[in-house]
């Protein structure tokens, strides 16, 4: 048994270092770093490049990768990204790190070379020496992990508690604004914190590489598992995070001892350990009716006072709301109508293979609309829409394939199954706060991916399951139009919802929980409603996509792929239904164009572009499409000032009752109005 405990402490040690890095970053910057795994992979891949590909010595490669490149990466990221996020909402910060998690692994592949590497060396020279500790064999790599955990925990605690730097960091955690006013430079502290955080990411990466290989997906899984410890630590408690991380490693190892080693279930249960921990913590919190309230938990009163109101700037910014109000019918709806007209023409203009892709793109559009609802309208970050799409696809295949139901009825059933799961996830997580929703949905996606999508019934020996299209829409063209009709119906539903009492209540829940609750609106109910409805939409979209492809392979609904989908949508625009269509077309068509007409390496460029696009959401929360539409409108307003303006709003501006400057409305728009 001791052997299993000692072996478990290795994985636990890596969890502990990763959890420590995540907690330190969150407490000192308010950023829950979803890109921690991508950073770890990037540095580990750089170490492999230096040590294995360029034949540097272990010491030199480790020193350059972990002690120089990793902190430098943190400093660069702070300079170009994180310092602009100081006053952003927690969700905007998370989305920026999600963008980074998509861009960094693709960037590493472009810079250092292709592919996942199964065998990667650690910090111990090869062949790795084995020692015996009370009869238990321990490798030098394992000893390095133990030593790293001890050094980090002891040094971290001493520095934070007793040093001048630690005092300043703790002051900044309490209030960045007050620290600044007290004469301490918070920028210098932030740079230091980010350097330490990426150093820990780099160390995690290099230590983990011999165990999990150099595969970005494995790194994402590792960090998602570390989130279990972070959730147990309520995002802030360093000793608890380290302790739970170690315990998870030991528990995983002990399960290996007691479960039959040959069983497929054993592997799945081992993979599921962190997610079981998360579930236990969530249920415990729910029973205790605990709420962390992460938005309130970070920063002081002054910090909150200078932070824009509202939970998520990803949802409509105030300037967008005001600018939209300034437009007449033509100004608001001309763009989407033109876009739908183009979409109608697309299957007719394109031929053969490309028509099939438009059908898939329209189905993707439906899935993307689920984010338009839950994030754009509801202000919540759900990271498992791809899982709901997968559930929809698999349910469709079961009902249509095995039970012989009509295929569209089966798609509807898939939507309802996803709806049920969405309501359950929403109920479990929404009460705890928005960051937990992001964490829980990510975890749920990984859990379903590992436990359900791997069932032999769905995998079908790697062949997937086949589906037939409905008889009236069996051709690519007719099925494209069927998907387009579904897209338009769901879009109209969302447009109606926005202006209905439901939409008003959802808007209220997003902008002010206290205001909503004291007006008789249940914040949790409205958000669960939005989440469950979005899950239904994703389920329907998944079913339509499966029917478009005529096969369902569970592996195409991997959670990490869903994060790339999300990044693509955020790049184009999370709030508008038109943007969902453009994002879907871009997401499906661009890789196909790259594959057909461009050099191979451009395939890796797309995730980088989408990742950077998601990062830019911090500055342009409405996305590329809205930004370009805005520029076009401003141009039109110069040519024909009255063409797009709402008369009533213009009167209010003229009367001085609307303060356009206060909400940052573009001067040219305000100027034209007045």
């Amino acid at each position, binding site marked *: 048994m001791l052997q299993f405990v000692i072996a478990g402490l290795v994985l636990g040690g890596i969890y502990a270092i990763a959890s420590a890095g995540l907690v330190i970053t969150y407490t000192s910057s308010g950023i829950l770093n979803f890109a921690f795994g991508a950073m770890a992979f990037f540095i580990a891949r750089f170490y492999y490049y230096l040590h294995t590909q360029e034949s540097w010595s272990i010491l030199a490669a480790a020193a350059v990768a972990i002690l120089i490149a990793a902190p430098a990466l943190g400093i660069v990221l702070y300079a170009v990204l994180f310092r602009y996020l100081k006053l952003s909402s927690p969700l905007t910060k998370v989305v920026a790190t999600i963008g980074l998690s998509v861009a960094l692994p693709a960037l590493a592949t472009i810079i250092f070379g292709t592919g996942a590497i199964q065998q990667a060396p650690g910090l111990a020279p090869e062949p790795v020496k084995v020692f015996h500790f009370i009869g238990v064999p321990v490798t030098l790599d394992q000893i390095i992990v133990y030593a790293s955990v001890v050094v980090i925990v002891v040094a971290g605690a001493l520095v934070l508690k007793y040093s001048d730097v630690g005092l300043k960091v703790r002051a900044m955690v309490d209030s960045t604004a007050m620290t600044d006013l007290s004469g301490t430079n918070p920028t210098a502290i932030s740079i230091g914190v980010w350097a330490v955080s990426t150093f820990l990411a780099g160390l995690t990466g290099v230590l983990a590489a011999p165990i999990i290989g150099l595969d970005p997906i494995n790194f994402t899984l590792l960090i998602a598992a570390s989130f279990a410890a972070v959730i147990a630590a309520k995002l802030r408690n360093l000793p608890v995070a380290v302790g739970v991380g170690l315990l998870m490693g030991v528990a995983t190892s002990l399960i290996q001892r007691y479960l039959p080693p040959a069983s497929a279930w054993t592997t799945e249960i081992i993979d599921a350990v962190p997610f079981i921990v998360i579930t236990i913590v969530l249920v415990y919190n729910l029973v205790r009716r605990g709420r962390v309230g992460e938005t309130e938990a970070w920063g002081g009163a002054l910090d909150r006072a200078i932070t824009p109101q509202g939970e998520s700037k990803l949802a409509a910014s*105030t300037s967008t709301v005001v600018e939209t*109000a300034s437009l007449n019918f033509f100004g608001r709806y001309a763009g989407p109508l033109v876009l739908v007209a183009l979409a109608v023409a697309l299957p007719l203009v394109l031929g053969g293979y490309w028509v099939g892709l438009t059908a898939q793109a329209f189905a993707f559009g439906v899935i993307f609309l689920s984010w338009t609802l839950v994030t754009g309208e509801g202000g919540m970050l759900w990271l498992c829409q791809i899982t709901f799409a997968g559930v929809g696809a698999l349910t469709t295949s079961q009902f249509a394939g095995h039970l012989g139901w009509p295929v569209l009825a089966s798609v509807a059933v898939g939507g309802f199954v996803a709806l049920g799961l969405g309501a359950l996830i929403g109920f479990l997580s929404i009460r705890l706060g928005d960051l937990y929703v992001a964490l829980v949905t990510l975890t749920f996606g990984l859990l379903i991916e590992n436990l359900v999508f791997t069932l032999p019934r769905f995998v079908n020996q790697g062949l997937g399951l086949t589906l037939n299209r409905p008889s009236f829409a069996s051709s690519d063209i007719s099925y494209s139009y069927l998907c387009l009709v579904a897209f338009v119906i769901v879009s109209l539903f969302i447009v109606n919802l926005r202006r209905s009492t*439901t*939409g008003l209540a959802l*808007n*209220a829940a997003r*902008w002010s929980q206290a*205001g909503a609750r*004291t*007006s008789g609106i249940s914040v949790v109910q409205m958000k669960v409603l939005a989440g469950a409805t979005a899950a239904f939409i994703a389920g329907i979209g998944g079913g339509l996509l499966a029917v478009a492809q005529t096969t369902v392979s569970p592996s195409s609904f991997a959670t990490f792929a869903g994060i790339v989908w999300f990044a693509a949508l955020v790049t184009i625009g999370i709030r508008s239904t038109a943007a969902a269509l453009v994002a879907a077309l871009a997401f499906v068509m661009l890789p196909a164009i790259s594959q057909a007409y461009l050099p191979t390496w451009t395939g890796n460029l797309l995730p980088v572009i989408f990742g950077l696009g998601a990062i830019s959401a911090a500055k342009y929360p409405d996305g590329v499409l809205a930004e370009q539409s805005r520029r076009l409108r401003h141009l039109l307003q110069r040519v024909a000032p009255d063409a797009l303006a709402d008369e009533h709003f213009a009167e209010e501006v003229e009367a001085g009752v609307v303060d356009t400057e206060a909400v940052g409305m573009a001067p040219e728009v305000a100027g034209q109005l007045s």
Partner: protein
Amino acid sequence: MMTTATDAGTIDATADQDPVALAADDITVHFGGLTALSGVSLEVRRGNIVGLVGPNGAGKSTLLAVLSGLLSPDAGKVLLRGDDVTDVSARHRATRGLARTFQQPELFMGLTVREHLVLAYRARVVPHRMWRDMLDPRALFRTSPGEVEKVDGLLELLHLTHVAKAPVAALPLGVIRLVEVGRALASQPRVLLLDEPLSGLDLHGSENLISVFREIVDRSDDGLALVIVEHDVAAVLALSDMVVVLDFGERIAVGTPDKVRSDAAVRAAYLGDVEPPQRTATGQTAAPAVPGSRPEVGGA
């Protein structure tokens, strides 16, 4: 004795006749080692305006948070028209007729002024529409005569008609305060808690709003009661039927404005027991230049 909203769009007010609209009994709240409220009791009778005053840190906003259900007390009870609502959530207190405004406005920045009032009205009177409307393609256009009358009347009363269609994100603070009051009144409350409703308003705006408060209470068929926390002590004393004074989390005085004005403990708490507040030409209370005095009130 709970009252209910009917489908016809009116609130059934006949069910309860308790003369006390809202009561707090022996409320104690601790924040860690700090006692924010210590055994504070309060009674608000129907149709009354109760002023809640006290220096900074006295516990006024904490008491409002307890009354509205946003904060659970460590001890004590809250009664809404005779019903013990201590363990009832803020949302359910709102559906029973308790509305409030906030010191830092808590508006819904994506909505227009009118939408704020419409939403508050529907949340109280036709709450099922919050669920059903998303599936109803006519939702956008469905309004009841009662809703239109109520919302239009409030917009007019608060001089908000001309900004009804403006998104609140574009409005100055003074107007935003009025929108918050409008939203609270649109929910047809039995008790309205006002947390510094006059701050940010100019003198003219303050006078208008004070007259609105008096008018809505006097016009109410259902005995609407107000609890007002305000910086402007003179305004509170002029407006209120009863005044409660808090200091360091304890109730130090309660009574009519005249009684409170002459209360020795109040004078000591506010003025260091030196001299009474001076009236300025504008009717505002001016702080006497006394060392150690605490002329500012509110913002607890």
